[in-house]
């Protein structure tokens, strides 16, 4: 087993009391907006966590508050075409680590912790600051323990300190921090990142997950950035489909690292893609935000390559040639400042 030094990191959140709904379908058998986000928004169901990965089949996983889980499952099942597999998993929790600063070694170390804690992973989502995992609540203690093996937290010395400091009642997935609804949804900023490569891999075991973590940590050693990562289960095969993006001029090096670390795993590659990162506020605490976004893109016929919504933000990947159109659509849909800083850059 490789030996790593613990990484110092800012914070950790565990949000319990969730329900997870996963779906896998042939393309167009389950439309992300019309069949998932729109019905949930109409029923005022908040999406605390959402990932969508498009490909030969489309895969999505979402998390709602526990009480809304059954309704969310029924809505998705009702709207989906018959060939769609839909699954409800009650008793879910979200564990989020931050800030990742787009550093692959932090995200890799988080994934390695999940692998070593042997959690049954329901999905992964990244936000501009955080990497979050959706998992059964009964596994939350194990993953927190493992995270303390791999990270040093400035606010907590041990898992016991962390759990002792959680305010009663425990932080809930369904907790609504902000109830305001705006005519035009305000966004702190929309950051565009063109010239990205999208990589995908199907991971079938904890060993595979640890190998993927090793690959990401290799990218980290090279000082590269990882602006996007999302994962959703492929219902039927039992694999976890992981998608992430890297800077586009590193194709050969990334391919070599992945091939070395993930022998026998079929890799997916798509380039060029562009990322659009919508920074809050409170996208994880209010219903209807993902719907507003996905509806606008579907109406403009801009297909999503991947989407990740967690904490307060939504990140999405599209094909590079759609970037200008998508920026125009989002600019007309959301109220965003004219100028936004670019955020962390680099390879």
């Amino acid at each position, binding site marked *: 087993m490789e030996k790593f030094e613990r990484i110092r990191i*800012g*914070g950790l959140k565990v949000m319990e009391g969730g329900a997870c709904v996963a779906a896998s379908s042939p393309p167009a058998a389950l439309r992300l907006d019309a069949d998932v986000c729109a019905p949930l928004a109409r029923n005022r169901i908040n999406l605390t966590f959402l990932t969508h990965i498009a490909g030969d089949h489309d895969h999505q996983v979402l998390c709602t508050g526990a009480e809304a889980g059954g309704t969310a499952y029924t809505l998705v099942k009702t709207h989906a075409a018959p060939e769609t597999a839909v699954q409800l998993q009650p008793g879910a929790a979200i564990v*989020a680590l*931050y*800030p990742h600063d787009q550093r692959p070694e932090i995200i890799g170390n988080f994934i390695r912790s999940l692998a070593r804690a042997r959690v049954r992973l329901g999905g992964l989502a990244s*936000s*501009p*600051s*955080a990497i979050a995992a959706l998992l059964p609540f009964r596994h939350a203690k194990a993953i927190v323990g493992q995270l303390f093996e791999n990270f040093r937290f*400035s*606010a907590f010395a041990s898992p016991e300190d962390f759990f002792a*400091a*959680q*305010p009663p009642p425990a*932080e809930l997935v369904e907790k*609504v*921090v*902000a*109830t*305001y609804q705006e005519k035009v949804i*305000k966004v*702190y*900023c929309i950051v565009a990142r063109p010239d990205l490569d999208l990589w995908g891999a199907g991971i079938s075991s904890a060993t595979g997950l640890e190998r993927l973590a090793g690959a990401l940590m290799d990218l980290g050693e090279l000082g590269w950035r990882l602006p996007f990562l999302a994962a959703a289960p492929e219902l039927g095969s039992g694999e976890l489909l992981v998608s992430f993006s890297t800077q586009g001029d590193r194709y050969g090096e990334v391919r070599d690292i992945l091939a070395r670390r993930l022998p026998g795993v079929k890799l997916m590659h798509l380039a060029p893609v562009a990322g659009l990162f919508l*920074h*809050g*506020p*409170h996208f994880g605490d209010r219903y209807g935000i993902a719907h507003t976004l996905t509806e606008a893109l579907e109406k403009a016929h801009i297909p999503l390559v991947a989407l990740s919504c967690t*904490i*307060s*933000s939504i990140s999405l990947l599209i094909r590079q040639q759609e970037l200008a159109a998508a920026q125009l659509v989002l600019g007309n849909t959301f109220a965003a*400042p004219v100028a936004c*800083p*670019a*955020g962390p850059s680099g390879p």
Partner: protein
Amino acid sequence: MSAKYVLIVDDDPDLVETVSMMLESKGYEVGKAYDGVEGEEAIKQRRPDVLVLDVMMPRKNGYQLCKELKSNKWTEEIPVVLLTAVGEAVPTTSYSHAEGLAVEADDFIPKPVDAATLVEAVERLL
């Protein structure tokens, strides 16, 4: 001359990231903390030129921390901008502006934060 140091304390990591990006783009050095206790530790480590402080946080809320800072002669001069998710925008909150006034914060910015307003407030207090 070294850059002015702004400490942001908020339990929403994406908001910390966003505000931090905005202030860094203006040339400020930015520190980050994710709850009141961590913020207090960060202030002991390095005295900020301005503190941007959320109200609703676990372990120690922004009002408590602001009150403690303003009643300590070593920290009373640190300008504090309170981010207040109160009033019309968030009717469910149990916090009020009156508490913010009582703890002598130097400025108040309602959430959702208008980035330009926040940067202006920070610059005004430096």
